[in-house]
């Protein structure tokens, strides 16, 4: 039984009950973690004390070995320290951090000769500072403050959701769909400009990836988090893609009609919405629970709350034959097909399920037909 269910009797208004239930579940989850002895960071503490710092830590940062340290020795040193502290991915964490300090993205991109070079004093200090944050289970992407999504390097900042590798495949699906349409249309006449809506833009990975690849495409990106909107704006400015991007901060569960008014008609919708089942939230690793925005992950009881709202909005704002591309939890394709077959979203048909690189059903493609809603 969920702790959150105890709160039902206290609340009376349906909407407030829904909202407070979600927040209460989040807060109770955090309380449970604290009781279990985990160091839990709330967002306000993150903002005031800087990214990745955790006040309630009880370990001591190891001293560096004496004398100048070579790059590969430094990597091995911290790999051992991470292993001893049961930090996941000890080798990868150490490699990414040291590479970042050296100005590279991966150790594999360095020359072999560079691996035996000694680190300077300031490089050593920086490595120690970053690795200490990793010892606190801060995700590597937040430690180094950036991560790559396909060909783009994006700034990462807690608590904004870190793009996952599966989502790169979602963008590939959309590209393939657009390119195949372009081939079909190109013989008829010049392509008109395409506009899409992204729901839950986070750091901007999806919308910026598409804007970067397709110079004639325009984007409307929505997120309920101010931090996410700010980070997407910052990444868009850095990449010179702001002119074709319209950012809206709103909660599509509450402000859907406002979104419909602001959006106009769009050619397709793409989203990596919160899709984790609420009951699975407390199974997530500390890197996620302690540092990422849990509202970017929790999709409600069946992980479908935001997804269902996207389908509802899609009926109103999609142009004829416009598609919806979603990243979902592996159980969702079957659930969505059932909901649609039961007539829950008339005007929307289920087109296809695609698997991710680990063969899990991960992507749903739906389409608005020309039937009357």
């Amino acid at each position: 039984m969920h702790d959150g269910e105890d709160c039902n009797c206290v609340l009376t208004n349906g909407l407030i009950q829904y909202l407070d239930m979600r927040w209460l579940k989040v807060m109770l989850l955090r309380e449970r973690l604290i009781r279990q002895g985990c160091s839990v960071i709330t967002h306000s503490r993150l903002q005031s004390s800087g990214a990745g710092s955790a006040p309630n830590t009880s370990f001591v940062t190891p001293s560096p070995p004496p004398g100048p340290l070579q790059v590969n020795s430094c990597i091995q040193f911290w790999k051992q320290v991470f292993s001893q502290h049961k930090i996941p991915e000890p080798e990868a964490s150490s490699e990414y951090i040291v590479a970042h300090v050296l100005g590279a993205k991966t150790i594999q991109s360095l020359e072999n000769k560079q691996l035996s070079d000694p680190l300077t004093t300031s490089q050593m200090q920086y490595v120690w500072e970053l690795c200490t944050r990793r010892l606190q289970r801060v995700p590597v992407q937040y430690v180094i403050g950036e991560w790559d999504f396909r060909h783009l390097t994006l700034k990462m900042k807690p608590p904004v959701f870190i793009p996952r590798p599966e989502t790169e495949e979602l963008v590939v699906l959309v590209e393939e769909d657009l390119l195949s349409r372009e081939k079909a249309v190109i013989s008829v006449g010049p392509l008109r400009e395409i506009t899409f809506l992204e729901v839950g833009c986070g750091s901007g990975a999806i919308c910026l990836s598409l804007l970067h690849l397709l110079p004639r495409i325009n984007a409307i990106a929505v997120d309920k988090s101010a931090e996410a909107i700010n980070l997407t704006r910052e990444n868009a400015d850095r990449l010179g893609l702001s002119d074709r991007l319209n950012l809206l901060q709103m909660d599509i569960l509450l402000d859907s009609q406002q979104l419909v008014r602001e959006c106009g008609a769009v050619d397709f919708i793409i989203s990596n919405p919160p899709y984790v089942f609420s009951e699975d939230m407390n199974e997530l690793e500390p890197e996620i629970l302690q540092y990422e925005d849990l509202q970017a992950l929790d999709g409600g009881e069946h992980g479908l709350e935001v997804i269902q709202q996207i389908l509802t909005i899609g009926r109103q704002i999609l142009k004829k034959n416009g598609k919806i591309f979603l990243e979902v939890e592996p159980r969702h394709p079957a659930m969505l097909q059932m909901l649609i077959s039961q007539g829950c979203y008339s005007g929307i048909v289920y087109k296809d399920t695609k698997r991710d690189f680990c063969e899990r059903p991960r992507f749903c493609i739906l389409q608005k037909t020309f039937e009357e809603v």
Partner: protein
Amino acid sequence: MMLSSVKSSFPMLLSRISQWDPSSFARPFLTLKPWPLCILVSGKKDSLNLVPLKEEELEEQFVRGHGPGGQATNKTSNCVVLKHLSSGIVVKCHQTRSVEINRKRAREIMQKKLDVFYNGENSEIWTRKREAERMKQEKKKKAKDILEKKKQFKESLAACPQENSETA
């Protein structure tokens, strides 16, 4: 000749395949794929084209954990391990922080390795190396010829003034 060498190494291929990680999330393979005869028979290739890869002959492995993946996991290991089932060639790519780009690069490396594996001296790499070497030799020879002609011209100039002075 290629076919017979393959047949003799059949048991070796099987043992290499059996070392494949059974707990991987890649598609499990149940049967050995038939030998791609089209690659063996094609022989010398157009120097601009490498043999295209067939996805059904490839198996990929990633580090993604045992849970539902996706949002529920935040792992940074983006290493892609690509295996060509027929030849047993394995390519590992960890060059970038993007899984998609690592997958693309792994396939490019696999294409080149397969070209060398199947075509040996006729492979793209060796053909281009030989071509580059041949052009280098040609350039050297041309430069040598020009030097020789210049030398002869100088010598003839040195001989000529005496004749010119006699006739004038």
